[in-house]
């Protein structure tokens, strides 16, 4: 489903930043329905991997294939075709601040030209799944961190994507909410979606007992089925 072939990503220098090599000659493959965790220290290249998958960034060299499509050939204005197959979960939630919980989740469906009549039921169903059916009319600023993350998950799930990209989804949460989020991610994976998680949380990685790709300074140093956190 996703293939990285000798991918290198360099960020060119500018007035404020020095040149940085985020990934160096990275190769791996992720199959449909897998649960893969990328772990590593901050700056190891985890987020860059996710950005390359979602076409936010293009590789400096090498090839990133998404469903056999080379992401280098995808124009910025056509990247939505790939993103509509992906559900994003971010550490900082990335909710639209002036839209309610319901509207934030519905937005992802509206962007797909989804049938208006079914939209309300679909959104409420997903909000129930994440336990936020009673908070549908709240604005993001009225929610706790855990609730915001659940809205983010609901938004990622609403269009039943093939892949979930979760970038440090528990980074801002307490252990209680962290467990909740991990459980939801496992459920999503069991339902058939490919889940790609980026984290530096040892507890989560060890508890998952799924494939772990460990990155250090932009290189893959370990790729293990049922891996553990070891840095």
């Amino acid at each position, binding site marked *: 489903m996703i293939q990285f072939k000798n991918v290198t990503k360099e960020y060119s220098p500018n007035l404020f930043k020095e040149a940085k090599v985020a990934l160096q000659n990275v190769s791996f493959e992720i199959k449909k329905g897998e649960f893969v965790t990328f772990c590593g220290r901050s700056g190891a290249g985890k987020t860059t991997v996710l950005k390359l998958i979602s076409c936010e960034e293009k590789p400096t060299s090498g090839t990133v294939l998404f469903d056999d499509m080379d992401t280098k050939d995808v124009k910025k*204005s056509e990247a939505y075709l790939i*993103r509509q197959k992906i559900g994003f979960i971010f550490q900082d939630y990335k909710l639209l601040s002036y839209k309610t919980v319901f509207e934030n989740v519905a937005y992802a469906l509206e*962007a797909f030209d989804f049938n208006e009549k079914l939209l309300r039921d679909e959104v409420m169903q997903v909000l129930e799944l994440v336990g936020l059916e009673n908070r549908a009319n709240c604005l993001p600023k009225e929610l706790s961190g855990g609730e915001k993350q659940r809205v983010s998950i609901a938004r990622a799930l609403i269009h039943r994507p093939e892949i979930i990209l979760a970038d440090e989804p528990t980074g801002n949460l307490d252990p209680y909410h962290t467990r909740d989020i991990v459980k939801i991610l496992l459920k999503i994976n069991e339902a058939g979606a490919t889940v790609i998680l980026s984290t530096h949380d040892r507890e989560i990685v060890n508890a998952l007992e799924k494939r772990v790709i460990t990155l250090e300074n932009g290189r893959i140093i370990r790729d293990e089925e049922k891996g553990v956190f070891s840095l």
Partner: protein
Amino acid sequence: MINYLRKVFKSGWEGFMRQGFLTFATALVIFIAVVLGTGLLFFQGGVSYLTEQIKDKIDISVTFKSDVPRDTILGIREDLTSLNQVKKVDYISPEDAYNTFVEAHEGDEYMEALGLLSVNPFMPSLRIQTKEPSQYKDVSEFLKKEEYAGYISEVNDYKRGVTIERLGELTRSVQVLGISLTLFLSLIAIIITFNTLRLSIYSQKEEIEIMRLVGAKNSFIRGPFLVQGFLCGLFAAIISFMILTIVLFIFNKQLTTLFIGFDSLAFFKGNVLWVILLQLFVGAGLGLISSYFAVRKYLRD
């Protein structure tokens, strides 16, 4: 398509209503641009009024010898009226001239001097107004023709020539200044509005990024911003129209005195459709176009 437009309008309306401060700040700046645009329309109206006033003051007076028959003078008047440069020719009979003099000098020493004369000392004359101040020369040349020489006692253009020329230059300068000022201030209004909307959209660039990441097409992202810019402009145009109407109705007398007789309310009433169109165009148009260019930056390939 209708469904898409409905969603775009709904989303734009939500943004407009819920982003209170941002909406207010943007609408305020567009309001200033609309007021500036409307002010320029009134300025142009005022300049035209002033120019006409000045032009009306410029005339050439031809005094005929006292024995020239009225029909001959009216014939010359016909000849003058047929000239392209001539706007109006008034015949002033000796009686009219006498009456005008009496009205203007009632009770002063000139009247005493007039009383000593047993006959009407005034001679018949023609007062000529040209379409443009510069055309007085053509008319005075025309009057120098051989066939008129025997009838004419005096053409006063030589005495007033310099004044006429200066007034002509003044009206031209006022017009050029008016147009330059209009263009300059319009440019400033456009730049200010565009930059305000750019800043407003810049503050929402993260939201644009989120929309992209959840798989929205560029047109679906751009649409609500265009609607929001349009609504801000429309809101600004409506408010400025209301304020303008109220101010003109309440303060018209003072404004007329301030602007040397230019009746702003009458101008407003006579051009109300243009005022509405201008305000809508400046407000909603600027809002829409500026939003388009401001959001384009974040959606470019």
